[in-house]
């Protein structure tokens, strides 16, 4: 997902990574305070508004969620059955909607359905909000955060280089695959064991090539002065602006209000 950073100039893009992470944590906290779906609908709506402000590609978000639809349906069904009426406190949630088996067996409660809905909203909200975070924040900002948290340079270097080499390795494996198939390798046929065996001709050249590449990479790192000083510079320093403090304060206040409301019994089932 880090690869998918979409450059932009929206207010969300401009926020500091720290402000975004605080707001993200607050949002997730609020999400788990309320069991009633209506409250979570409001939270999801606010996330949708943020996504609109950030001008995110909704199609891509939908692309990530679409394969999960069957899972969502499963969750609804399972919670409907597994949360019996007795687990809920409010009278309407305790109502039994219907029995799926004659003789008052396998009851489905209103609360169960509603809670299933809440779980669903939580998943969608989490996927959407974490996507907003990664789609609007360049990798460099996360790395700087690691640096502020005193995580060693080596670790952030490994993360970036790893991500940087994903497309390279993809291209190489496509080339190897083409080369093997061109001389009659059967890669996509046969049973499980045969298929695993068929990948040997792909894996061996890939590993050999990786070893060669890693040697070159070591040279190239030194050629670029890697390890010359402990105090390496990054191009952009992340800096907190006024808007970042405002967002952090707002996020904390809203979450605090939500905590109080939840304690008073709002949003319970």
């Amino acid at each position: 997902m880090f690869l998918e950073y979409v450059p932009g100039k929206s207010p969300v893009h401009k926020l500091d990574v720290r402000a975004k992470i605080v707001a993200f944590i607050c949002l997730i906290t609020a999400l788990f305070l309320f069991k009633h779906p209506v409250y979570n609908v409001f939270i999801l709506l606010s996330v949708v508004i943020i996504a609109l402000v950030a001008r995110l590609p909704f199609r891509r978000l939908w692309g990530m969620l679409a394969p999960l639809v069957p899972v969502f349906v499963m969750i609804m069904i399972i919670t409907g059955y597994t949360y019996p009426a007795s687990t809920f406190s409010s009278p309407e949630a305790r109502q039994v909607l219907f029995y799926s088996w004659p003789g008052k067996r396998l009851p489905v409660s209103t609360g169960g359905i509603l809670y299933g809905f809440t779980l669903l909203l939580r998943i969608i909200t989490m996927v959407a909000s974490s996507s907003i975070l990664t789609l609007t924040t360049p990798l460099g900002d996360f790395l700087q955060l690691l640096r502020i948290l005193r995580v060693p340079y080596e670790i952030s270097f490994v993360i970036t280089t790893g991500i940087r080499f994903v497309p390279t390795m993809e291209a190489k494996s496509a080339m190897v695959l083409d080369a093997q198939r061109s001389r009659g390798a059967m890669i996509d046929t046969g049973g499980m064991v045969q298929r695993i065996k068929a990948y040997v001709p792909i894996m061996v050249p890939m590993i050999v090539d990786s070893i060669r590449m890693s040697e070159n990479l070591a040279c190239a790192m030194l050629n670029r002065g890697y390890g010359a000083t402990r105090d390496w510079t990054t191009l952009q320093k992340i800096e907190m602006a006024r808007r970042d403090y405002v967002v952090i304060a707002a996020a904390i206040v809203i979450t605090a209000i939500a905590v109080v409301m939840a304690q008073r019994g709002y949003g319970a089932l």
Partner: protein
Amino acid sequence: MRDTKAIRVIEVDSLSYKYPKGPTYSLKDVNFQVDSPRFVAIMGPTGAGKTTLAMTLNGLIPQLFEGDLEGYISVMGMDTQRFRVQTLVSKVGLVMQDPETQIFGITVKEDVAFGPGNIGLDAKKIRERIDDSLRIVRLTGYEDRFTSELSGGEKQRLAIAGILAMDPEILVLDEPTSELDPLGREEIYKAIDNLQRERNLTILAVEHSSEDVAERADEVIVVNSGAVVWRGYPRDLFCNVPLTREFGIRPPQVCEFGWKLHELGYIKSSDVPLTIAEAAELARTLLAPAAGPLKAQPPVAPTPVAPTRSSPPAAVLVKDLEHDYGNVKALRGVNLEIAKGEFVALIGQNGAGKTTLVKHFNNLLKPTRGTVYIDGIDTTGQTIGSLSRRVGYVFQNPDHQIFCSTVREEVGYGLRHSGLLEEEAAQRVQAVLEFVNLQGVADRHPFTLGKGERQRLAVASVLAMRPNILVIDEPTTGQDWIGAEHMMGLVKNLHESGHTIIMITHDMRIVAEYAERVVVMHRGRIVADGTPSEVFSQRDMLREAYLTPPQISQLATELEDLGMPSGITTVDEAVAVVSRALTVGLSGDIRDQRTCGGID
């Protein structure tokens, strides 16, 4: 050529080096000095120790690669054994051959910032360096592009920018252009020319292309078997053709042309030209009196097209082929017919659609629209496996397919699924090994073989399927002259034994010397199709397709007004035309006797 005072920047004194597990010394008693600012080319055959030498200059040897090092190397007065590589890199920058492993950033800007960031420059300074180095390599405007989306040439220029951002005083380039297409090469050389113009930088470049070296280098150092065997001006090396042959270096075509005229007694050895301009001037002086007879000459007879063109069905028949990668149209309506037994060179820029086209021949790609027939059979519905018996595809890098533990097994791999009896398969493997001359190493591990042998092994493993059509992707890329000649010898043998050859290449000399037919692609279309001499005389089309014809064809164009036929593609043709003109001129025409006598 520049008005700066020369300073000694590199000093190498009795340097010998042996890799930790190396059987012999890779460098033997190397001595040389370089004064700034200079462009020094390092040449020599593969395995001569050029890369090893380059790596000693910034301390990678012996700091990263240990081993036995004797002698003394100093750059900008710093002993490379006493200072860390990370310190030396601010003085001497090393750009290696493979750009892929030299890029660390996800975006172009981040990548250039990597080096300066490592040495702790402040952000403002780093930004200046990014702007400056991207401008020199002509990548301004690419700052926020993803490095993974750059072309090979752009990646190599980015690798150079990343090193320039360290602001070194010496730049060492290890075969910076050997894997690139002509446009990529040209851009690299423009960057190098920019650098020489703008900074007082000493450049050492390991380079196989004598034509590029001849145009730019102030000096050439020839390395062979780990020792410096020759050092001097490019002119003294390239214009002495027997000497270049001795070192395994392919001389520029105009030098070969001049040398042949010298051998025929028309010019003195000191008059052998180094560049196209010089060759044109020489030819003008020689031919001026004979201009009449030259004009009267019939044009060079076009190389006969493969005689078998009539025998149906065609080996390859492509009809209205289109291919889209997502929204990108890679092929926009290609029609092509290749007869059995033809030798076709497919040329064009990277991204022109050459590889996309040939991948349709064995179903690695399926047409978006249009049809491909192989031996008259529609490829739709065929599998790659069944087509592998008709079309063999030899990929550029043999290491992308070698995985077995012996040469014999490797060759036999494709036959495992063919349903052949074991005995029959073994016989076939043996026959193929003999054809490519690898029978002596049949039981060795492939990775103990040299690059040339591994490439022959890759060819053998494709030949085992007995295809009649061979697609060969860039057979000579990244190889020295001897390696390229060996490989082309094998390709020629395959052609003579009846195979239809479809070869993708960027080397126009190879095209002129070996191919019967040239197909030029540009932006997903075929823009020219004919014999080498027909294609190489279409200057405008070639320019539009970003292709440069061989030097000798360029010379022929320069001399068109003298009546030089434009279809000349090889040195021998050019020499023949000139010498014929001169013999006629010298013996027959009385009017020209006087001036001609003055030439000798």
